[in-house]
């Protein structure tokens, strides 16, 4: 029997904080969704759409997603290496420094200290905090792996290591800037170069923060939840290496039809389409791991979250490449279609997998049973319905917007003025705002269920909890 004393306290703390930041992200998302249809909800100067939207994305990406990955990586790395964390002290420091960074980020964004670069709005002093955070996290994870007691490294560990180096490279290059004062800097790159660097960063933040970490989580928690191993190890290897190789070529698909040189756009388009293969490698690996286990979709709520999560990953990685094709991009880019796409990834793929992992892990590390499977199911449906309404309403709005923007009269003039197209979108923006409320309700059910689990869940004998 394994007697290792794992550090679960740090996992617990990161889970709690990440959920808090997740609620902030969704709350701000709901507020800015309503601002688009009710401009009087903008309270200048601090609470305007322009300042709140970066807070929404940063709280979602850095607070909720990365916060959860800190928790889950620390959990997985100990289990997969069969040893406690390399440094508990460093992890504890990281927890408090993480929260300090997120708070500093939130405050400065509301004050208007922003670089304007999407998903990299934080000004240089907070950039430095992020770098420190990532370095100590990377050291702790890497050293734990180096000193592991289980020789082969499981798939999740590959994705974790790739994440560490990927984020480091992306963040450092895109952060290159010249400070003017404590909270103001200018980019080291100008114009078209700046745009190309920014979207190399922007798209690969999706790779290294919103793809490889949730895949690490998926590859660990799916077998844990179903009790059967991953279908093909060889497929995992091919999917892993081709994914991390191909992703970095695709950033310029955000810049199709801009002044960025055509050959970069063409490479980005080609590699985006090629990315379908490694993405679906993981999707198929997930589906085929369910062979003979599909009944668990009915009787194991964790599997429902995970399989729907990987399904949305599959849909996301088909829709994404289609948007990266020049002709379709010409039509759909800059419309509301894109937030529909992004939210399928964020609310569908990433968050559903995170919910599953947290539902699995919280009872385990507290030595209790989940308080209510019924409430977990309710959360599942609220999340699924909220996400689908969000994405579908934005896809329809985007198609409508695109059709109207491009529509020409027989004499070659534009059929619609901008405002004529704008007012047609309002009903869809209303629907999207309501979808956010549904998703938020799901989050509250999630939190209530976890709280009651910790307070009142049936206890599980300590030994069973440790080895399960």
């Amino acid at each position, binding site marked *: 029997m394994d007697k290792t004393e794992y550090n679960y306290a740090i996992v617990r703390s990161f889970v709690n904080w990440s959920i808090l930041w997740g609620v902030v992200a969704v709350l701000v998302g709901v507020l800015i969704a309503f601002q688009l249809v009710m401009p009087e909800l903008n309270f200048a100067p601090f609470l305007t759409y322009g300042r709140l939207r970066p807070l929404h994305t940063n709280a979602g990406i850095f607070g909720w997603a990365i916060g959860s990955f800190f928790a889950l990586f620390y959990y997985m790395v100990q289990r997969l290496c069969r040893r406690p964390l390399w440094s508990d002290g460093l992890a504890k420091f990281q927890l408090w420094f993480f929260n300090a960074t997120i708070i500093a980020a939130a405050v400065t964004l509301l004050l208007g200290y922003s670089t304007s670069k999407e998903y990299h709005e934080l000004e240089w002093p907070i950039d430095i905090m992020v770098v420190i955070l990532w370095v100590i996290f990377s050291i702790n994870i890497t050293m734990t792996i180096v000193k592991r007691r289980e020789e082969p490294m499981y798939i999740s560990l590959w994705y974790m290591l790739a994440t560490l180096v990927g984020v480091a490279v992306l963040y450092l290059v895109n952060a290159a800037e010249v400070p003017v004062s404590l909270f103001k800097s200018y980019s080291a790159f100008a114009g078209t170069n700046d745009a190309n660097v920014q979207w190399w960063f922007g798209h690969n933040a999706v790779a290294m923060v919103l793809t490889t970490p949730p895949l690490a989580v998926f590859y660990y928690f799916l077998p844990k939840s179903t009790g059967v191993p991953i279908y093909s190890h060889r497929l995992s290897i091919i999917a892993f290496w081709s994914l991390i190789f191909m992703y*970095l070529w695709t950033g310029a698909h955000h810049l199709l039809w801009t002044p960025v040189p055509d050959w970069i756009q063409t490479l980005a388009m080609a590699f985006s389409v090629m990315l379908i293969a490694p993405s679906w490698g993981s999707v198929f690996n997930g589906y085929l791991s369910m062979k003979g286990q599909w009944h668990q979709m009915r009787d194991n709520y964790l599997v429902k979250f995970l399989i729907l999560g990987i399904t949305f990953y599959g849909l996301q990685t088909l829709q994404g490449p289609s948007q990266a094709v020049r002709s379709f991009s010409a039509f759909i880019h800059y419309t509301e279609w894109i937030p529909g796409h992004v939210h399928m990834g964020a609310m569908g793929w990433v968050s559903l997998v995170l919910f599953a992992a947290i539902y699995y892990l919280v009872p385990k590390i507290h030595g209790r049973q989940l308080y209510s499977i019924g409430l977990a199911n309710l959360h599942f449906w609220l999340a699924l319905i909220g996400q689908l309404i969000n994405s579908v309403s934005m896809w329809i709005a985007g198609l409508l917007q695109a059709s109207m923007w491009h529509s020409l009269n027989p004499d070659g003039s534009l059929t619609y003025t901008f*405002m004529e197209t704008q007012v047609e979108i309002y009903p869809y923006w209303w629907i999207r705002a309501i979808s956010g409320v549904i998703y938020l309700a799901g989050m509250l059910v999630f939190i209530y269920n976890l709280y009651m689990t910790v307070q009142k869940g049936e206890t599980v004998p300590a030994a069973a909890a440790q080895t399960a």
Partner: protein
Amino acid sequence: MIWEKNPVLLLVLATGAILVGTIITMVLPFAWVNTEADSIASVKPYTPLELAGRDVYIREGCNNCHTQTVRPLVADVLRYGDYSKSGEFVYDRPHLWGSRRSGPDLARVGGKYPDEWHYQHMQDPAGFVPGSNMPAYAFLSNNSIDPEYTRKKMEVLNFPYTDVQITGLTGKTEMDAIIAYMQKLGSDIPWREAVAAEIVGELVNPYAGVDHATMEAWEHLYEENCAACHGEHFEGDIGPELDGASLEENDLFEIIYNGVPESGMPPYSSLGADKVWKIVNFVKYYNIGEDHQ
């Protein structure tokens, strides 16, 4: 496999895999972009006031709703103006191309409207443009520009400036600055002259003798496109009062279709001849024979 048992080797290999695409699509392009080949001589750096305005634009996150790149697509060029060229952005640190048009593209907004239009619009966009959902930025008028801080910014960016320009910032507000920036956008190249529509053949009013009830249906065209400057009842405000009786149909058409750049009147050719004719008839005949308040 060996890398599955060696985390350091895995890290090295993963870094290599990541760097290939990075070097080819991110590092290499520096040899193509912002070079002699794509430079445009008429493109000038920002003045201190424009730069201060640009920083207000960044602070308020305007790029979350407004793009600044016109694509070489028919509808984009018709709606916004000449497509964007790489050489126009060499002084942009950071770029502000944006990713979504929850508001219109602004790459060519410079010179489109007179300053006064922008002052009134920023004050209360939703009240100024019917149906707009843009937040109000009236508070910018209360914030003054710091001349010395702006000088420091000019130094960091290595932009040329004069002391007169810096002292001239005294008393300027953030509203003045952002409007100066708006007027600079896209106007370094002489694209307006290049794309000005030319009217060929004889102008014939297709709606001659139209009745009052028909014109009423066109009122929204006037409200959306003209009322902000010429007043809801033709009384004038930013633009002159409109006296239908003294204007010839064909002259009115030309003024609206091509604009009068010297006076701040924008061209409305992108509406198409049909809508412009409707507006011409509405302006000229709507209030004749009726008490129009």
